[in-house]
């Protein structure tokens, strides 16, 4: 019906997010005949890219909306800090260096940038924000790609890649419900991670993973990743790990995106559903701590926790997408949250008794610490005393998974017999090659853009 199976495509791109689009555009600009297979319907196209908001970019001097400079070594140090060294230095430095050329390329291909958003000023030097966010970027790239003659098929779920003797032969795809075989001369894999496959997550993490919320697209089910691994492709990244942050527990199961974040932990007492505290809420400023709270909450009974704040702190953090639960007494709040009122009262009383006088400074480490409390709260420890009291539930929100395909600096994929001759990978499906642990804001888009462009250029050169 679609006629896509009647053509021998030069380059087939699996996945229509940022990484795949960059590859498709690069390949199409050389004159190659390019097909994008996007598993989502058009309204949900773009994978996790539609939820992103910025691009971390090296720059020797002011560049577009970026101020000052952000050199290779500083960028690399930031990466080492979050990954604790779990990276490939050669690939990482290449990615960082190339990011500087990518920003003008992005602008030339339709992406508009804006200055750092309010509440994100800490990133104004290092990260260029997309005007309108990632979906606007995705729209711009689709328009550019279509203008270059790229064909796009939506609702196109690739089920199997045929690889023979290290060479891509064709693929099986379900197009609008119809199993179809499509042939191509080169393949770019840009189909993301597996975080939306809850069974896989549960296999890797344990049954608790079924209580996780998935912050991004429900279409990243890792079907192509698993198919490639089953065929002996080299993998990289810890298969049991995912990146999870603590988000509003009432968020949608999938696709809640940015608005589900909660920034109130540093100003709260956080308890589990037994009403007990379990970690220092004031360890560091929130942008440096939100990532560990995903794991912390995941380790609690039923993978849930509750932030308790009082009226003093209600305006110290970004507005939440859902209003907090609210009550005039702690017991009333506990009842609304579904936890024991007397237990919460005991925990808060013990916390309040351990608070010390001092000056509260919400935007910096103020050293306002508890004494004699386990675990302590080492900053912003103010007694919870002024009603009405407010509460939010927290759950782990999965952003991405680390397991992926191992690539080299030309985005080539490897198998048992060495390099695969006409298969390249970009985006989340290979990001584990560089990001072995943790996360650096805006770096996923950098990896996708850098390797997307390389993959597109390499694939086009292969078929030229």
């Amino acid at each position, binding site marked *: 019906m679609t006629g896509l199976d009647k053509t021998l495509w030069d380059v087939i791109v699996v996945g229509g997010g940022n990484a795949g689009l960059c590859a498709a555009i690069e390949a199409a600009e050389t004159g190659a005949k390019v097909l994008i297979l996007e598993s989502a319907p058009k*309204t949900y196209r773009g994978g996790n890219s*539609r*939820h992103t*908001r910025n691009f971390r970019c090296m720059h020797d001097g002011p560049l577009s*909306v970026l101020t000052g400079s952000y050199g290779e070594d500083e960028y690399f140090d930031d990466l080492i800090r979050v990954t604790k060294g779990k990276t490939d230095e050669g690939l990482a430095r290449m990615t960082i260096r190339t990011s500087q050329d990518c920003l003008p390329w992005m602008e030339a291909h339709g992406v*508009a*940038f*804006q*200055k750092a*958003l*309010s*509440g994100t000023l800490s990133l104004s030097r290092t990260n260029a*924000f*997309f*005007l*309108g*966010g*990632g*979906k*606007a970027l995705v*729209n711009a790239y689709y*328009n550019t790609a279509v203008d270059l003659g790229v064909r796009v098929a939506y609702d196109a779920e690739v089920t199997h890649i045929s690889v023979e003797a290290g060479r891509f032969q064709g693929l099986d795809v379900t197009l609008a419900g119809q199993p179809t075989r499509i042939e191509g001369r080169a393949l770019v894999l840009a189909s993301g991670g597996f975080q939306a496959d809850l069974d896989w997550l549960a296999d890797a993490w344990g049954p608790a993973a079924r209580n996780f919320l998935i912050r991004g697209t429900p279409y990243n089910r890792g079907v192509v990743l698993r198919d490639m691994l089953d065929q002996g492709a080299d993998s990289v990244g810890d298969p049991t790990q995912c990146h999870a942050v603590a988000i509003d527990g009432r968020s*949608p199961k999938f*696709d809640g*995106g*940015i*608005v589900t*974040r909660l920034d109130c932990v540093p100003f709260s007492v956080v308890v589990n559903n037994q009403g007990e505290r379990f970690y220092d809420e004031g360890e560091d400023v929130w942008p440096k701590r939100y990532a560990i709270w995903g794991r912390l909450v995941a380790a609690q009974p039923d993978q849930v926790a509750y932030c308790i704040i009082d009226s003093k702190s209600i*305006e110290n953090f*970004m*507005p*939440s*997408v859902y*209003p907090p639960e609210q009550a005039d007494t702690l017991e009333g709040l506990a009842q609304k949250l579904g936890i024991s009122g007397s237990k919460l009262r005991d925990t808060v009383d013990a916390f309040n008794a351990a608070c010390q006088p001092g000056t509260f400074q919400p935007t910096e480490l103020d050293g306002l610490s508890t004494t004699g409390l386990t675990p302590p709260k080492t900053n912003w420890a103010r007694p919870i005393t002024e009603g009405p009291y407010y509460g939010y539930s927290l759950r782990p929100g999965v952003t991405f998974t680390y397991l992926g395909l191992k690539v080299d600096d030309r985005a080539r994929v490897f198998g048992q017999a060495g390099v695969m001759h006409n298969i390249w990978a970009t985006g989340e499906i290979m990001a584990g090659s560089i990001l072995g642990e943790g996360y650096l804001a805006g770096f996923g888009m950098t990896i996708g853009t850098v390797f997307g462009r390389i993959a597109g250029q390499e694939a086009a050169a292969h078929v030229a």
Partner: protein
Amino acid sequence: MSLDTPPRLTATDEARRQVEICNACRYCEGYCAVFPAITRERAFADGDITQLASLCHNCRGCYYACQYTEPHEFALNLPAALAEVRVESWDRFAWPAGPARLFQTSGVALGGALVVGIALLFWAVSVLQPDSGEGFYAYLSHGLMVAIFAPAFLFPLAVIALGLRCYWAEVGGARIRWGHLQAAMIDAGRLKNLSGGAAGGCNFEKGDRYSQARRHAHQAVFWGFLLCFASTSSGTVLHYVFDLQAPYGPFSLPKLLGVPGGILLTIGAVGLAWLKTKADPALGAPSVWGGEMAFVALLGATGATGLALYAATGTGLVQPLLALHLGTVLAFFLTTPYSKMVHGFYRMAALVRDAQLKG
């Protein structure tokens, strides 16, 4: 109705629901003035929503960039939500409210007003024709023209002034200083809020692609209208202050202002109407689509009939064209407080208020 059906939100409640989600996201801060205004608040009173709605120019950039549009359960469509609030607020602020509901929603009603206006003027030029007079004063005396148009101009202005007072009270406006007016006029004159910021255009006739077409067409209408208005005003000054009576020559002030003004107004209105047929009605207030379209046509008709009248100078067509043009202008004036035309006044007020809030 079953008991478990949630009550339908009012336009203001629905806009508030959406704005609160936007305030937790903030990805659209660079498009227009609405989003920075949202980030200045944590809670939104009804008056805040009215202000945000009046500030929104319906550029639609935020809709196409939004990750939460339907079928997402958050179901955001902020341009439509704010458009609905605007429409309701114009009804609420108009006196009397009945005509506002009618002319905002019904293109047919606005067309009816046009027919009545033209018929009235045809009657005037045929029955009340003066004994002597030059140019179009041969068909309608200056005194009668003033007798018709002075009230037809001043009454709508008075109604709009009352409406603006209600608006100002509702949004909690403060004392206006020159700096606020200046900032608002610069934004209005450049149509900064249709520029899309760094996107270099808004999303209207080409879906998620940016374009300057609507901004340029609106600029033509806006400046064309002001030139026409200046032309008429200059004629009034020439008449009363300098005792120079129409008809004026081609290089007179009224013609130098009026001819380019009429051309811009006509072309701009045709452009806006055409663009409107290409845009998605679901991103505005669908109930007023017809009324808006008729209003654009009426604006264009005032320009086109004025040009035709000038072109017909000295021919036998002056009499019918004079009736046609003045009838169109009459219908335009009298419906001004109740048609889409009020958007200009409330938007200006919103820009002034925004300048105050930006401090």
